């Protein structure tokens, strides 16, 4: 395919423009008008006063992770490692353990996400086969004074978790 070349004609400045002065005055008029409009009544101001006024994030915003819960409040995750395998940043660390309930088989003894390493790509929630990890909390990670609190564990993740309407465990459950 041949490249399409589109020559753009530069606008030649007329004397009125190249003598600066009328255009400078026009610019000054615009900035001065805007100054007074905003000084008296803040008419065009777009700034949000952040901590007091917060903007609602869009529905698909990927925020802090949360681990969803079973109906009895246990963690939904079955420690299948799909999320930590999919994670491009390698920041999910799961230690699996055997569950006493044989129909569940496995559960994560330790489930840690290092939020400083996470790139919020959302691959983990895509990979999860049983709706156990989600990023729909609408929160972004908060600043902390040291690194270690950013490595959040299972308890923190479950704290903002909730029940899922998805059925887990196939036919026999």
């Amino acid at each position, binding site marked *: 395919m041949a490249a399409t070349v589109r020559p753009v004609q530069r606008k030649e400045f007329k004397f009125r423009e190249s003598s600066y002065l009328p255009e*400078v005055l026009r610019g*000054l008029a615009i900035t001065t008008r*805007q*100054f007074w409009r*905003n*000084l008296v009544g803040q008419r065009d*101001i*777009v*700034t949000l006063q952040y901590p007091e006024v917060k903007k609602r994030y869009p529905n698909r915003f990927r925020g802090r992770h949360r681990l969803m819960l079973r109906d009895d409040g246990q963690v939904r995750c079955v420690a299948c490692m799909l999320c930590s395998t999919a994670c491009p940043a390698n920041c999910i660390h799961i230690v699996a353990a055997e569950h006493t309930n044989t129909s569940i088989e496995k559960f994560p003894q330790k489930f840690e996400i290092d939020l400083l390493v996470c790139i919020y790509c959302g691959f983990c929630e895509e990979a999860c086969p049983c709706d156990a990890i989600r990023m729909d909390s609408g929160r972004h990670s908060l600043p902390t004074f040291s690194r270690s609190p950013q490595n959040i564990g299972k308890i923190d993740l479950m704290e903002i978790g909730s029940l899922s309407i998805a059925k887990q465990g196939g036919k026999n459950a």
Partner: protein
Amino acid sequence: MLELILLSVAKVMGIVMVFVMAVAALLTWIERKQSALIQNRVGPNRASVAGLRLGGIFHLAADAVKMLTKEDFDPETDNPLMFRLAPFLAVVPVMLLFAVIPFGPGEHFLISNVGVGALFILAVSSLGVYGSTIGAWASNNNFAMLGSIRTTAQMISYEVSMGLNLVGIFMIYESVNLQDIVIEQGSLIWGWLPAWGIVLQPLAFILFMTASIAETKRAPFDLPEGESEIVGYFVEFSSMRFGLLALSEFIGIVAVGATAAVLFLGGWQIPWVQGTGGWLTVAQVGAMILKTLFVVWLQMAIRWTLPRFRYDQLMRLGWQYLLPLSLLNIFITGVVLMFVEQGRI
């Protein structure tokens, strides 16, 4: 003798410390606030004293505290003395300017009635280049050096037309003494038009403002700083040393404001009001301050309106447009004066 010294000290305190420093300090806040409002933002508004915000005016104090308590970093330089001297070299000339500016009629509102006041202003304002150049060269940094080269070239180029612009004023008022120039501006032409510099020399006023904004190194002529590309001649300065360099720029704005007010806007003269004394004097000092603030505001508004020039455009504007126009202005002034003297106008 002692009386004279005390009086001078009082005048210096009154003019420089109370008026100039206060305005310069306020400008650091006003600039942020004004630019914010022009750009549909709110600007600094968080600093508060006892829950009172007052539009963030306390950022003045917060900034000062921040500047004074930050680490004062010394770069590895072969010339630490010059590096430390540079902020003073920048701030002293702009403050010196106020020595000859008459803020009101008579002796009491003028620190020193120098016979060659206007020339003193031109001489001292060109000294300002030393502060930025020496500071940049002593800080042993290539970016600072680039900034200082730009500063030097720019200031030297624009000084030429700045000086030539004032020649027209000197020709009309037949004096280089600022107080005399202001007194001359009190007269009326044809009985109704104030004989202000801006009325008699409109072209010179525009050229003078352009050249002086270039002298104070502010946008659209802020190439010596050029934050987005070379950071500027003060890149190695930190804490209050940087603060002093920035403050010298703001004092420079006030100085340009006062100079333009004296030379072009009639100084302390209130139009159509003759005579001095009593409350009228107070009003006249007020008028001078208002005029100064107006020119200060004009410079700030221009800074937030126009984009920066390219360097070749800057040089072309300085040498190919401003300089010939200044010479043309002198020529026209001369011709008109000749006709006036022959009684033809």
